[in-house]
């Protein structure tokens, strides 16, 4: 009953609408990959290898004659799954640590903030490279590595929000009622940070996808013949001049996905908290 009124500013925000459309396309291809893709992502057709886009192969073929369109479509599954898992892990770590640091302050805060700053200071890709080198190349290791190095932003944001929320009279009132610290953190402070978390999570999906794709591109993540966009890009480098479509289309897919999440995230930020708008 109240929804239409709340949705009106959403529809008036063209960036947000564009983001939603882009992501719907990606989501649709990930869910319906089996129906959309004309071929399997690993079906080889050596005679028509390196073929340019045609009616049979809409986006051309690679050096094994695999359908690039099918591979890109299946790749969206990997990209979305990776993005969601990484963001979930980093949200859980970052939000819990941020809550603890912001609510307790003092020594707890100093220790957590030190670790956060330490993680923040290291370039994520380099740290992830080190972790993957230690654990061995695989997509799962890359996901863990990226998640372990990119929670610092959440921790900082939630810490400062918790610091301001813990002095709100309604939190004081909760303390006066005899609520436990745990209950105050998770039932009073956390729900009032949901807006922030949703925005930050949406905005960090593209970073997560780009980082894992980069590591896959370097050969540390998904291994061939997986249709990971990073893997396809890597295979395409050798044929950059003779068959540019191999690299162009997974690259485009990556850009569209990242753009979609960024537009969505910024739209959400404007909607959930107009004051954050610059």
């Amino acid at each position, binding site marked *: 009953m109240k929804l239409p009124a709340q949705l009106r500013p959403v529809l008036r925000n063209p960036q947000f609408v564009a983001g939603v459309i882009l992501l719907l396309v990606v989501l649709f291809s990930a869910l319906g990959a089996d129906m959309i893709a004309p071929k399997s992502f690993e079906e080889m057709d050596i005679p028509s290898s390196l073929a340019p886009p045609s009616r049979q192969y809409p986006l051309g073929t690679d050096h094994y004659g695999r359908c690039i369109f099918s591979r890109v479509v299946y790749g969206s599954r990997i990209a979305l799954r990776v993005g969601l898992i990484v963001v979930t892990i980093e949200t859980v770590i970052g939000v819990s640590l941020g809550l603890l640091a912001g609510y307790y302050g003092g020594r707890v805060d100093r220790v957590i903030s030190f670790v956060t700053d330490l993680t923040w200071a290291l370039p994520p890709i380099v740290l992830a490279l080190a972790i993957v080198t230690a654990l061995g190349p695989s997509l799962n290791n890359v996901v863990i590595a990226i998640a372990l190095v990119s929670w610092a932003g959440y921790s900082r944001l939630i810490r400062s929000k918790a610091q301001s929320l813990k002095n*709100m*009279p*309604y939190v*004081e*009132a*909760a*303390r*006066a*009622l*005899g*609520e*436990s610290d745990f*209950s105050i953190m998770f039932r*009073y402070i956390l*729900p*009032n940070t949901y807006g922030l978390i949703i925005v930050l999570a949406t905005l960090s999906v593209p970073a997560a996808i780009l980082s894992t794709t980069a590591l896959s591109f370097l050969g540390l993540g998904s291994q061939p013949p997986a249709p990971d966009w990073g893997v396809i890009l890597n295979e395409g480098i050798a044929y950059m001049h003779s068959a540019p479509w191999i690299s162009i289309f997974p690259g485009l897919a990556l850009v569209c996905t990242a753009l979609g999440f960024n537009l969505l995230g910024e739209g959400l930020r404007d909607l959930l908290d107009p004051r954050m708008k610059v």
Partner: protein
Amino acid sequence: MSLDPAPLVQTAGLTKSFGSRHDLFGRPRLLVRAVDDVSLSIARGETLGLVGESGCGKSTLGNLLIRLEDADNGEVVFDGQRLTDLNERELRRLRRRFQIIFQDPQSSLDPRMTVRAIVAEPLTVAGWSDRAKIAERVAFVLETVGLGREQMSRFPHEFSGGQRQRIAIARALTINPDFLVLDEPTSALDVSVQAQVLNLLKELQERFSLTYLFISHNMAVIRYMSDRIAVMYLGRTLEVAPSASLFAAPRHPYTRTLLQAIPSVVRREPAGWELPIIEGDPPSQTSPPPGCHFHPRCPLRMPECSVTQPALAQVGLDHSAACLLYRVAPQE
């Protein structure tokens, strides 16, 4: 002080400072003594009014009484138990016996909880689990403060300021406390609504035999609500007296000037205690003047006032003031 043999709340030498002891470079930093050696007692069923300018430590004193903040020194005794000695768990169990109502009902209610959830919260904390009993209690308490059942599933922002304050009062009452700290409960409300909320508080006090600490900077409101009044200035209590006696014959020069500063449409007959209205702001709290804190602004200051800090001394029946004027002649 009160002659009641067993006051509900009693403090002795309560002191609280703010600010860290050292700055970034290890130099000693100036502390703000928000509450400085305050000893008070509140009898069962009475309302003690706490009045003073903003920043004089009224709210801090209220927070200390129910241990929302920990005192640096001194003790608080609640119904025979030393609150200042209790550990977290014991304190949490005792918390249902005293509650606080804040000035701004907008920020004292969680914007994401419905009225039902807000008012039921104290029961959940107290370990109630029977949903029907909780619902019954919530409905009863809301009705007590003048809100209807049908408003239970709304959110705080859907209510007016006065109604929100009623919700906050309902939340405090759910678990049947004995003692309420009312921290400027009507200062954020429209004048017309103020009176309604004040009357509600009076009714509730009678009905549930509550004891109040009523904090305000508004002399008229304090007078209307309080049985006894304590006047605070820069963290210290300067005068404690029954309401009638304070307004009829204020002793401390600060109280006298404070009462005189109340605007009035009716020309008042001189009552014999008028002093020139004081000007200027209270002195810095980080470096309060030595001796009596009030002496730089006091129209009756004596040379000694800048040296000696006066203690509360009996100046009448149940009436005490901290002023050197009364040290020499304590009787009328």
